[in-house]
């Protein structure tokens, strides 16, 4: 393997340069707004489609396409036969491409309401959402629904892609009208940035190249923005948290606790506590990537060995002894119901939160959310694709955190014990009887301030200033300015 060794040495420099951060992007919007077309065209413009795939596309465009003789870029994404036959997107498609500046994973999600759960799945993993609007139709109920879900699942950056501008005479007035309309809806959703871009996705206007047909627009092209947006997640609270996935016990000499670090970092010699038992020990070994290390941090898959053996099982959490969260058996949460059968308050579901699993009952529906107005309305259950604020009673103590503070311990799914179907996804708003304010409350200007504040984890003085500025402009409906202000404030972090 002499060649391999030489190759490895030679490669180190170039590989490191390419081993850059990755942006996970979601496209969403109403049916026929052109999501798949936009992504397909973006892949085409970034030379991400191979010649043999292009010739297959040409053949399929003639057979299934909706663009006459022209290429139907949507067919690059709609990978299931049923999708090609019906000309719609049913399931999430993941596409991968890279430019010289960044690599991207894009989830192309369905617009139809019945497939909202697939859209939510894509949103849970995204750093940025491209929300498409048809310039002729403007902001629709489904646009508002998607914006709401995206925000609820913690996506902090949005692009308002106003598509099919050619069918609206490339009108700046029409574009501004839609931006204002969306700004009013989204002002209460707490996005950190919203960048509106006028497009003709089919022809590539303002995707990778600036449109000559809309010279009044002087913002970035979509690709420019995707390549440069700062999507660094806010710094999370520091205490070390490791949800245990499994106990490795290859022989009698070694017992290791394996999992992905949810928060903070760990170092050999640290004092830790196992939750919910409360037993304490000291870290003897930290193993990541197949070797012993001195330390490991959030996002890394680790194995920890302790100096004194204590009883720990899958679903327990290893935490910094100095800063351990308290176990709870009650969660205040926002649920998205995903099953054909409505939520039943008398039924026991399995709650999966990280590697923890417990029996769970939805004891209270505080309210459902009207996705068109974002107002609360009374409800006793949740039907498919409905969102509501609920209380969940769990049959044993679990370690959970507010989703805003911690993604890994603030997200969960509910599974029906009989059918094994995943029936709901949820985010934790608060734990125990003292629930924190939920993001689904009806929003007035004070709530806007709260939403803006709670998406940012900056120093309190700066926070107050950015919050006030955001409220002032946000209520006026010019969210573009808000995003600009927030970007400026956030940038130096």
């Amino acid at each position, binding site marked *: 393997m002499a060649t391999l060794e030489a190759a*490895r040495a030679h490669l180190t420099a170039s590989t490191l340069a390419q081993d850059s951060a990755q942006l996970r992007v979601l496209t969403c919007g109403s049916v026929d707004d052109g999501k798949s077309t936009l992504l397909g065209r973006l892949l085409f413009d970034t030379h991400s489609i191979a010649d043999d795939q292009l010739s297959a596309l040409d053949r399929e465009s003639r057979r299934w396409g909706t663009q006459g003789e022209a290429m139907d870029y949507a067919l690059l994404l709609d990978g299931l036969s049923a999708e090609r036959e019906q000309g719609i997107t049913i399931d999430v498609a993941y596409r991968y491409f890279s430019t010289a500046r960044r690599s991207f994973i894009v989830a192309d999600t369905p617009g139809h309401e019945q497939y909202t759960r697939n859209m939510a799945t894509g949103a849970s993993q995204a750093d940025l959402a491209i929300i498409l609007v048809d310039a002729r139709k403007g902001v629709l109920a489904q646009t508002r629904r998607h914006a709401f879900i995206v925000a609820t699942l913690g996506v902090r950056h949005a692009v308002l892609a106003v598509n099919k501008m050619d069918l609206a005479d490339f009108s700046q007035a029409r574009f501004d009208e839609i931006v204002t309309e969306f700004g009013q809806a989204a002002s209460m959703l707490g996005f950190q940035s919203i960048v509106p871009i006028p497009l003709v996705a089919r022809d590539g206007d303002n995707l990778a190249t600036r449109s000559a047909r809309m010279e009044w627009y002087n913002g970035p092209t979509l690709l420019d923005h995707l390549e440069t947006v700062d999507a660094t997640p806010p710094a999370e609270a520091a205490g070390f948290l490791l949800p245990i996935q499994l106990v490795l016990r290859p022989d009698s000499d070694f017992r290791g606790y394996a999992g992905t670090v949810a928060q903070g970092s760990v170092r050999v010699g640290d004092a830790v506590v196992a939750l919910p038992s409360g037993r304490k020990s000291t870290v003897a070994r930290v193993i990541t990537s197949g070797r012993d290390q001195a330390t490991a941090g959030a996002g890394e898959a680790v194995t920890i060995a302790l100096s004194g053996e204590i009883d720990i099982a899958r679903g327990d959490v290893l935490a910094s002894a100095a800063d351990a969260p308290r176990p709870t058996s009650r969660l205040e949460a926002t649920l998205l119901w995903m099953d054909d059968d409505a939520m039943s308050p008398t039924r026991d579901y399995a709650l999966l939160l990280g590697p923890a699993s417990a029996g769970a009952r939805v004891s209270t529906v505080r309210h459902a959310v009207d996705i068109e107005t974002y107002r609360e309305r009374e409800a006793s259950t949740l039907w498919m694709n409905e969102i509501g604020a609920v209380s969940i009673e769990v049959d044993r103590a679990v370690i959970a955190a507010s989703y805003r503070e911690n993604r890994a311990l603030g997200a969960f799914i509910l599974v029906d014990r009989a059918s094994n179907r995943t029936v709901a996804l949820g985010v934790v708003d608060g734990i125990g009887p003292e629930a924190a304010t939920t993001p689904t409350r009806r929003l007035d200007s004070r709530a806007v301030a709260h939403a803006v504040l709670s998406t940012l984890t900056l120093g309190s003085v700066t926070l107050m200033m950015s919050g006030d500025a955001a409220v002032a402009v946000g209520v006026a409906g010019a969210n573009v300015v808000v995003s600009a202000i927030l970007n400026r404030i956030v940038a130096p972090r």
Partner: protein
Amino acid sequence: MKMLSRLERLEAESIHIMREVVATCENPVMLYSIGKDSGVLLHLARKAFYPGPLPFPLLHVDTTWKFREMIEFRDKVGREPGTNLLVHINQDGVRDGVGPFASGSRVHTDVMKTQGLKQALDKYGFDAAFGGARRDEEKSRAKERVFSLRETGHRWDPRRQRPEPWALFNTRKAKGESFRVFPLSNWTEADVWDYIAREGIPMVPLYFAKERPVVRRDGMLIMRDDDRMELLPGEQVEMLSVRFRSLGCYPLTGAVESEATTLPEVIAEMRGSTVSERSTRAIDHDGTGSMEQKKMEGYF
């Protein structure tokens, strides 16, 4: 907070998936098909369970038509400490004389690969099987879950697949159901090669250019790996410097002309290529939706 790089993030994600399987399934197995994706998968698995040995066996479904260099490489991997390699051949298919030349690619793949795989999974009672498939390979794979639920009889129903928000996988299943699990779902061909270079993972020499005996057939360069490949009238064997981008049964896998003999050269060539990785795989081109059809029948 330290930001993980692209490869670090992908590695951690894959290890997390493998650990979920071992923690929640009773009898997992890793499908080992010898190529670059399998090599990466095996390397990640060793890291995931270090310092212990692999907590599951490797399974190779041998169609009896793999390149000889692949089989040599496989047997070497199988002899490494802590590795339990199972090899399964569909003996019914052998008895019936099924092969790519005698039966055509579609029947050969169905009998020797899909049926062979199902026989092996049933024989050992595996309830979860890791595969190295990536979503960037093919567009029905782009819709695949990380945990792909297979019904009794191993059939894949795209409409019954479960949503997978965050990294939360619902691994519950009824008796008779099983999972195909794809830890490399979010990796691209470029990620795989970059990772191979970074980690120094050994690869089958077929990925590197060398003078090899090839025959031009149906627009592909087929390497004549043994004399079971009979020459058709007008055909001749040429010695050309070729390599393979993707490995399968030798009569169904096209070579590409190349001078790339080192990893950096292979990576540079891949980045500059204008054709897709699977363009050299005959079974992908049995009609639009053919991969989806094969998956429904129980293929990976």
